[in-house]
């Protein structure tokens, strides 16, 4: 059974329909990527899964439970965590406080401290900046902090919305390495990307979203070889 299953999801903003009934699933342990152009509805999909946005119709099942009407905090408590688009660091809070907010849903102090150590291993630079305000970090460091903050929640399924956005190529490589490492630790990942090339290179499977409908789906290798995908998202054949 899939860890996450989205069925016929329809979402609108007022009168504007953003998703026209999309269906997909993510199995335990996979990296699945959702690629598509600007305005395709990728962020809307993730926001709806995390209950920041209400679905008009359709069903979202996570770990066998229907979470379509669950509250955002209930979803976080079940280990379904999102790294939002644009990092969304709490700028006035220190790096430490940002990480503590990531662990907000967890009560066991010792385990949280262990997660903090784990996060420092992945991102040693954050440790040097612990007492600094989040807003004073560089763009790359903020992206690291955003991922680290999500890891503090001990995710089972991590939704990542364009983690490579605005990063220098070398940092993009670093972030993708870290995504693979997190996945190797047993965290399932749903990755939204515009950088289709990179995303398909690390994913097991992928979906192509176009103006609110899923156009193509399949194993990442097949998608990467598909001429349509190559033309639209991989900069030509």
């Amino acid at each position: 059974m899939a860890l996450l299953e989205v069925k016929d999801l329809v979402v609108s903003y007022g009168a504007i329909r953003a998703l026209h009934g999309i269906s997909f699933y993510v199995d335990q342990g996979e990296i699945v990527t959702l690629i598509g152009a600007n305005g395709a509805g990728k962020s809307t999909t993730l926001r709806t899964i995390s209950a920041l946005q209400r679905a008009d119709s359709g069903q979202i099942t996570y770990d066998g439970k229907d979470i379509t009407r669950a509250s955002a905090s209930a979803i976080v408590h079940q280990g379904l965590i999102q790294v939002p688009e644009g990092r969304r660091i709490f700028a006035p809070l220190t790096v430490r406080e940002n990480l503590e907010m990531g662990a907000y849903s967890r009560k066991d102090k010792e385990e949280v401290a262990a997660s903090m150590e784990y996060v420092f291993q992945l991102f040693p630079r954050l440790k040097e900046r612990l007492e600094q305000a989040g807003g004073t970090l560089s763009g790359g460091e903020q992206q690291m902090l955003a991922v680290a903050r999500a890891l503090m929640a001990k995710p089972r399924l991590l939704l990542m919305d364009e983690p490579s956005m605005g990063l220098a190529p070398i940092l993009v490589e670093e972030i993708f390495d870290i995504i693979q490492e997190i996945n190797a630790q047993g965290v399932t990942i749903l990755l939204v990307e515009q950088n289709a090339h990179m995303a398909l290179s690390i994913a097991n499977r992928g979906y192509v979203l176009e103006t609110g409908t899923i156009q193509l789906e399949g194993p990442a290798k097949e998608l990467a070889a598909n001429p349509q995908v190559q033309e639209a998202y991989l900069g030509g054949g």
Partner: protein
Amino acid sequence: MVATQTHKEQIREAPIQRRDGMILNQLSQGLFALFGLIVVYILGRALFENPGLFMQQVLNGLELGFIYALIALGYTMIYGIVKLINFAHGDVFMVGSFASFYAISILDLHRWPAWIWPGMSSTLVMIIGTITIILISMFVSGLLAVVMERFAYRPLRNKPRIAALITAIGVSFFLEYFGALPFVFTNNYITYDRPFDVTVYSAGEISPVVIGVMWGLLVISLVAYFMLRTQAKSGDMKAQAWLRHPLLQFGWLFGGFFAFVLTLAGIHLESGGKVWDLSVSNVTLVIMGASILLQVLLQFVVTQTQLGKAMRAAAYDKDAARLMGINVDLVIASTFALGGGLAGAAGVLYATAFKQVYYLMGIIPGLKAFVAAVIGGIGSIPGAFLGALIMGQTEVLSAGFISTPMRDAISFSLLIIVLLVWPQGIFGEPPGEKV
């Protein structure tokens, strides 16, 4: 990329920057300087002619300022998290006063320790009783603020902001005129019995040991502050964390103000052939102590607890806070509870100072505290405190040395003058860095 709600708001909120007009800028600074010179002249003359009276007024101004500070904190916290000027906040303060009035005059609750332990010393009964009364009012006002948020503001949270603002004015009128009903608070001025007896201390009546301890506290916390700062600058992260700890604030605020007031009260002045004995009553000391203590506690909650951090996180970005599993509705309700509680405490202190309660008593202090919060930079907690002290002094000194009927006009014009020079208020941060 799609701009999210919060980001859009921040763009729309971008304030008019000072660099918009050089001439306007220079004009406003000139005006500020001129105003400053006139004030310095009038006050300087008053100080020179009659130092005793002047210092006594400064003490009275402090008392008022500390009360305004507690109200202003509520405005600033609530604005910080829901971007709403809660115009009914002054009435929450009024209800706090009435709650303590009933607790004292009808229920006699300020003497409860004496019912249980009849042998208890009267000073101890007074101390415990006063604390009880303050807690009761804080509870009532906090609860009122939560109910208000739940039923009046929450349904409008995603509507245009003007809707909640107008509702706030409506809630304010409702509380006032519901209070005016004969079976509620009535529309009369009611004499208020203080929860403790008044004692006045003047020169020679305050133990030099106490004064010394206060100076010691001030010096120790200042020394600690500067030591920590040098260490923090060299990259010591423990020092950086300690620098923000409310304990340090408590040291210099409590030590500083008590050292100042008690030293003044202990002064025996002779000038121009006249003798001036300054004095301070325990009412002033209680107000100052309670206000400082509550502010430091608030700082503790805001900077050291999960709830406080969640409040700051939600104030900055609600959706991101939801993604952390923070229950934003609960956090907003808690902010109203804290803000309302502080206003309730202010209500007890104000009634204790002026010995009167009245159903419209919240309007002027509410407005003054609002102005204080704006002057300090709305959304900033230290700003609210500083703004309130400035408002307290302005009111008392202009009543004393310029013109009594003009005092409110002068206090409110201060707002315009300060905003000309600091459009964001003194501690106001550029948008996007609120609270």
